[in-house]
């Protein structure tokens, strides 16, 4: 059977994500799944969509709120895909373990960073919040992670970020460590240069716009 317009529909899915049309993205995804579309192709187009939003954020055309909206649509689509194709393994440029450190539930950054890195081609393993240092190490080993991303928002999270970085370094894990921007509901809390030196991760980022490039650089892409 000749299928017409398949690529156009996937492009429409990508555009629905970029333009933050959640209902349309869900409808188009369900159509393509029912049509038997290759799930990896769907992921590619979703990736392109979130990557475009990431670039729009870097250019200042959208803010953290719009990035959050796109991230929510993306996560809905990916969950839907997993429901249809259990165990789907997506090609990636690298594997990222991400989590919010022990005792902390600041998770705005985690979702946004995860989505941006997905857009940049990474496979994301999200450990959630309140993650013990040894859990980062375990998961990184399990999935052969290239990068571990730590997030934390509480005023005393510098100590727990440092604790997690130290644990990862001591374990001998080959994964590179990024400390993500600290984003609250109405503020971004910068980590100054002195604290960056204290934490001693491979990268300490204050700007979401730098996340993808920093990760790609760390894996040598």
């Amino acid at each position, binding site marked *: 059977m000749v299928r017409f317009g398949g690529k156009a529909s996937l492009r429409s899915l990508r555009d629905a994500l970029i333009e933050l049309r959640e209902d349309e993205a869900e409808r188009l995804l369900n159509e393509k799944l029912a049509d038997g579309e290759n799930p990896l192709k769907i992921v590619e187009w979703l990736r392109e969509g979130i990557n475009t939003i990431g670039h729009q954020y870097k250019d200042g055309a959208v803010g*953290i*709120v719009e990035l959050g909206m796109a991230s*929510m649509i993306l996560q809905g689509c990916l969950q839907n895909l997993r429901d249809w194709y259990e165990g789907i393994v997506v090609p990636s440029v690298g594997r990222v373990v991400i989590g919010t450190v022990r005792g902390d539930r*600041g998770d705005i950054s985690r979702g946004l960073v995860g989505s941006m890195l997905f857009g940049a081609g990474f496979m994301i393993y999200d450990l959630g919040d309140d993650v013990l240092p040894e859990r980062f190490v375990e998961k990184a080993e399990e999935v052969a992670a290239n990068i571990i991303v730590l997030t934390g928002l*509480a005023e005393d999270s510098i100590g727990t970020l440092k604790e997690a970085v130290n644990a990862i370094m001591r374990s001998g894990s080959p994964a590179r460590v990024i400390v993500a921007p600290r984003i609250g*509901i109405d*503020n971004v809390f*910068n980590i*100054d240069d002195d604290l960056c030196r204290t934490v001693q991760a491979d990268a300490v980022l204050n700007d979401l716009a730098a996340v993808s490039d920093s990760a790609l650089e760390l894996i040598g892409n």
Partner: protein
Amino acid sequence: MTRITGSQERVRKAIRCETSDRVPVALRLDYCAARWAGLDTQSFTFDPEKASLAIEWAFDNAGGWDAVDSTWTQGTRFDRLETWRTPMPGVSLPPDKLPEADIEPAMIDVDYDVAIERGMYGLINVIRRRFGERYDAKLEEERVYKGFAPIFRYWAEEKGAVPFRGGMTRLPIFQFGYSRGWFGFIKDLLRQPEKVKEACDATFNDTVNMGEYQSRLVGCNIVFVPAGHASPTFMSREMYDQYFFPYFREACKQLVKDGFTPRLHLNLDWTPYLEHLLELPKKSCIVELESNTDLKKAKQILGGHMCICGGVPPHLLTRGTPRQVQEYCQKLISELGPDGYILMNDDIVPIDTQYENVKAIVDASKTA
């Protein structure tokens, strides 16, 4: 006749973009003051008198400054007036832990209809009653702010300082954002944007009236207008135009018309939007900017139109020496003063700041 102190005259002149004997200083101290005064965080959070005493310790030891942010109100406000739960010391946290930034939202998606039908006070009642309380938002607001009033009077009449905020006008979009939490807020903007807008329209007047009423109760005519969510970092221009600026502009106009001074708290980088502030009433508002914003450009654009305050970054206070702080402040004074500028720390002085660095801010103003 109420005497007007040197500090009060200095701040008034700065708001009117006039020059006085020196650039005034405002400081927003909270838990750092508790630490310096040996007060635990639970007491600072829930006992306004003790919190005020802690700030007074810093004030007296620095030889006094001009405007004191009324952070003695914040714990009580969070506990008694807000529509979300924040983990607090001595309640869900150990007594000496800081309140956490993690908000436990209590507004649900259908509450926008409550806001539309019953206004902001009605919405607050519905949400607080979910906490299991018998609650009346208007009565509670009156009770809480009347309770603060003696402390405000003390600072104005006994210490001669300007309490740097009375009440607060939190615009509807931000009230909904905090009340729904990040993920709820995002969902609402995706799934019911028209409802959100309608609720903003329906509750706008209440948010302006709240700021005015609270300020009257404490006898301080400076109304705090926070706007962190609306910076270019957080929001696209499209969203800013739809949910924020028209309300912001109208709120400022209304507050000024009614005899109040809006103190506009614009954290993060507002450089792209500085020209918009020219639409606000002239020589009647204070815009609180941080060092993330291009402050020299702000002065170029807003000089003669609006008083600027802010500019001392937190990392300088925690990592710098008193001399470095003083030199930095003197540079700010020379670049942003002498008229229409109030020297102030960005946002809040961090808890691990050395007291001597805060004193250096005060000294910079007095020796410039």
